[in-house]
């Protein structure tokens, strides 16, 4: 184990930072929440649990892989890298539909639901070149990525420039976010069968999710406007701390959402 740590661990000085603490705490809570939500999805056959479980899983994977890259451990598991691209495209639509079905539980799935999955398919296709690369190539790439994170958006393992994933993903996410807030505006408690608590839950989720998205979007904008310093910005603990904090908030919300629904089931 010691050899493993010695071999792969970099940026050890960041281990005691607030950003890393928030992230680790967030990971722990997210894992519990994901397991619980998957359980609820299976047991109750409720599409809201499925959607929020997908949001939780994709967000967790995103943050987890970032942390692995930051600490250098991704080199120990090169197969993990670049696998999350399609998953990340799921976060925004899933969050939107979660809010939709939370506020309007009687609404059916839209007729052209599959259109929301198109970016996921494109992401899946773009992840193929890296998946097919040899393990030596992957290791060589990750050896560069962990020290110079901008290689992560400049590597040739993809059909498009990797930065476009960030641009498209966040552009779409903001469109979904606006639609999400529109839902909250249109929702009328007097005409709705849901409880006030359910509405507030959707509002809190939207606030936390919006905050996280704004910070991540702010980071993407700063990366795009300062491309020479991509690596530095992606390692900047000041920036990562706030994003980690909002990830922790999201994890907290997921956990309380899980327990709330478990308690409802138990009638307490």
């Amino acid at each position: 184990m010691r050899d493993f740590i010695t071999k792969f661990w970099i940026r050890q000085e960041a281990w005691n930072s607030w950003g890393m603490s928030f992230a680790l705490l967030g990971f722990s809570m997210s894992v519990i929440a994901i397991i619980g939500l998957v359980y609820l999805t299976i047991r109750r056959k409720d599409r809201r649990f499925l959607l929020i479980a997908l949001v939780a899983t994709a967000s967790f994977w995103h943050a987890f892989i970032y942390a692995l890259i930051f600490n250098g451990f991704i080199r120990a598991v090169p197969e993990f890298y670049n696998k999350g691209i399609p998953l990340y495209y799921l976060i925004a639509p899933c969050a939107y539909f979660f809010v939709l079905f939370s506020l309007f539980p009687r609404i059916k799935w839209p007729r052209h639901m599959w259109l929301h999955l198109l970016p996921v398919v494109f992401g899946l296709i773009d992840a193929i070149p890296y998946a097919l690369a040899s393990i030596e190539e992957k290791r060589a790439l990750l050896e560069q990525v962990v020290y110079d994170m901008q290689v992560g958006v400049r590597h040739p393992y993809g059909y498009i420039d990797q930065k476009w994933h960030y641009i498209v993903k966040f552009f779409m996410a903001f469109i979904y976010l606006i639609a999400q807030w529109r839902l909250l505006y249109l929702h009328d408690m007097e005409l709705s069968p849901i409880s006030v608590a359910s509405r507030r839950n959707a509002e809190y989720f939207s606030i936390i999710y919006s905050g996280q998205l704004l910070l991540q979007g702010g980071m993407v904008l700063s990366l795009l406007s300062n491309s020479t310093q991509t690596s530095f910005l992606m390692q900047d603990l000041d920036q990562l701390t706030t994003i980690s904090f909002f990830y922790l908030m999201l994890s907290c919300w997921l956990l309380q959402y899980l327990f709330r629904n478990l308690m409802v089931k138990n009638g307490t």
Partner: protein
Amino acid sequence: MKYIILYLCLLVFGIADLHAEHPYRHVQVLKGIDDQHVMFTVAEKDRFGSIWLVSGGELYRYDGVHVIPFSKLYAEKLPFDEIQTLAIDPWGRLWLNTRNSLLIFDLRTWRFCFNEPFAERLTERKAQAFCQTDKDFLVATENGEVWQIGRDRKTFLFSFVADKHKGRQTVGNLFAADAHRIWLAVSGTLYAYDRRTGACRTAAIPPRIDDCIEDLLPLKDGLLIRNYRDGYYLYDGNFRLTAIRSTQENDFTNWNHWGFVDGDRVMLFNNHGEYLELSRDTSLTIQKRGFHRLAEHVLYKRVNAWRRFSDEWLLATDDGLYAVFPSSFSFEYVECGSARGMFRQNNCYYFGGYGFLHHMPLQGSVMEYKKAPEKNYYAMHMQDRDTTYIALESGFLGRMVAGRLTTFEPTVPSRYAHKFSDLGYCLTPYKGSTLLVGTSNGIWQYDIRTNQAVPLLDTTGMFFTDGKRILSLRYKNGKLSFSTEGGYFVFDGHRHRKRYPEGQQQLMIYDHVIDGGKEYLATKGRGVVLLTDSGSRSINVQQGLGSNVVYQLFAIDGTLFAGTHRGLSIITDNRVFNYRTNDGLPFEEFNHQAIFYDTAERRLFMGGIGGYVFFDPSDLLKAAKQDIAVPEPRIAALHIGLTGNRYKHYYAADALRDTMRLPEDALTFNMDFARPDVYRQGYQMQYKIDPVMDGFQDMAASGQITLVGLRPGEYPVHVRIWSANGGFEKTWTWLLIKQPAFVETQAFYALVLLSITGLATYIIIQRAKRVKDEKALRKQISRDLHDEVGGLLTGISMQADLLSMGASRDKQSSAASIGQYSREAVQMMDDIIWAIDVRNNYEGSLQERMEYFAFQTLEPKGIRVLFDGETKTDRKIPQIVRQNTYLLFKEVLHNIIKHAQAEWVSVTVRVDSKWLLMEVQNNGAQSPAPEKTLRKGQGTRNMETRARQMNAAIVVTQDNGLFTVLLKVNLRNIKWTI
């Protein structure tokens, strides 16, 4: 007499030790402050690599690139007018002895020190002298105190009688110290302070010594005193003259009789290259005697001060600044003009070239050899120790036997006569009694026995080197290799083949050697080319070679010695070392064919434009491989350009550390790099800034790196020292951090996104609002219809049922009720329609409707109506406000009719751009009910509900028989939802 004996002994010793090392050499650091000001008073080197100079009473800093006046480096007003001398303590502080007082300037903080413990009170006085050792710094003040200076404090050691009338400034030190004692010679008294006991002894210096006293050199048990008239005196309790002498008269007056203490030795430098190392004790035993290589013209310059820093001495003279330091290697030099080939015959070396040969015995000096005629002696081949063949450039071939030259005039077959060239450039023994001579037109085979020369032919009978100028020839193991102006070839006896370069490419190849199965080519333009079975590889300037033009090669034990156009290069173990004039070479440009290795003496001779140098190759290689103290690049200054045309300049060592943070408003950033010791070691500086540069590039001659328009982030600045002379390479890194301005932070971008998203959301919501308002309106209409009209219609229905059933006893009353209900329903319908009709949103509509309703409702009841309406805005009243205000007004009036016996009702409605105020007052208030029985009726609750729906405030008061309802609607903050 004893001096004469001693002198003779020294002379004999010196001859016996002819090969003593040349330990010191000198270079000129600076010609002057500028071309017109070449006099330096004193110069000191600081620990940060810069040299501080005093010239003309002004202070300057030299960082290896620029000489900058201190007045430009120090932003505030200078606290001095004239600097007389200076010293630098071990902690990086300048001690400036000015005309008025002593000043201390801290290079780390870049400020003068006045109140610190080590400076307090000292700065009120002038210094008599400074004494510096590696660890100590001592100050003797003009009021007769000697202080030992520490990092943070000072210690008083002893006092002395100061010389108030001294007229002479010595170049040497009259204030000296070693680990045991501190010596001070002043006012005819010698002070000896024992550092262990703290005791201070004094001795009167005899006037004959004192009047010409110049320097003190501490010994283990005494003191060596230089008197510039008599020589060296020894003090070991008594003063006595030593036997140390120079060959020249009156040469004690300057540093040409210069001495210093180094470890356990006293080093003395005399005129004409004499050099002595004596034991540092009172016996003054000679340890070494030899020659130094300090140039005579430097010796005779007037030295104003010398200062020692590490192994180096800085000499401030009237004609420039010089540095003297130990030499890393000493080349033996044979000054014989532009050199060509050479050879050894018996115990004498003969050097070729243009004109007479030069000859030099194995031990001795070089001179012209006039027993042989003037010729162009180009290349040589030693057949044996007595016989050497010489390729003559004009004259074809000669032979030297026992110092006697014979030239040949070969017979050439008539069919080749027109092609024969007598310009011989190289030669090699060939088959039998033949020699091959490379000429300006091919290779000729010369038979010694027949004196016949024929061109070298291949098996087809072709003169395959016809038209080629042959530059080098080697015949070994039946294989001939040769180089020309067009490339490198081999000939196996049958046919020739071009080995390099491939194809029709032409490349001048001066020389070639074969060592360990590898072929090395000295090329003109590609450096050294290594040919192997698998191909070729160049070793050129990029790999560290002195020059890409290589004239001569010699290989021994896997090490290649190359004489190039710019110095001597050694290639070994994939490393390249270079020697140039800075490293002791008397010249840098080597010559073709001027290379010779004396196997017996293990001397490699390499000739160039100034003659020959010779050395033991293994010694040179050993010296080259020694770890060289790599000069560390330093940042001499930082200049930051800020917004608003402001600039900040940093010179303090503390501000120039490894990590530098740029403020967020920095626009430009200049780093001035010093080039420490550049006069001692030739090196190149290269730099690279991550992530904006892909590779290293040469530092500008100004040593300045300028960065403009830096975005926030981290910029590691790598500076690599790339040696031209020693094969070393080292990289240092500074980290530059540009702080982001707020508009460059993630938070700002998040806010931008929030604004954009918020705006988009607002637009989307505004569009959705219409849908939502319609929905709310429908809800409101349905509620009103249900609440208001539905009840009336129910009443009408019930009365109609009673009538139809004939159950009603009072049919007239029922019919009246039906009529009343119907009118009220019509009124209600009219109100609802009025409320939802947007055409009634114009200003004044509400007041008209209210006034009409008030008179219609109250006057029939005998209640007087006072209506006051005022509108101060053109703004339309929102439908939700108009509707709720009107319905609330109706509720109030109904309540008055129902519950009050009012005689009059006053209604005031005022509308401006911000507020709608409605006050309804009547005098039908009954005495107020007790607080605890006060209960809100349905009407009041309805009014409050309506007020809340439009985010308005309603106040109901009862006072002095007046009942008042006050409604206040903020028209700018209307509730969105109904």
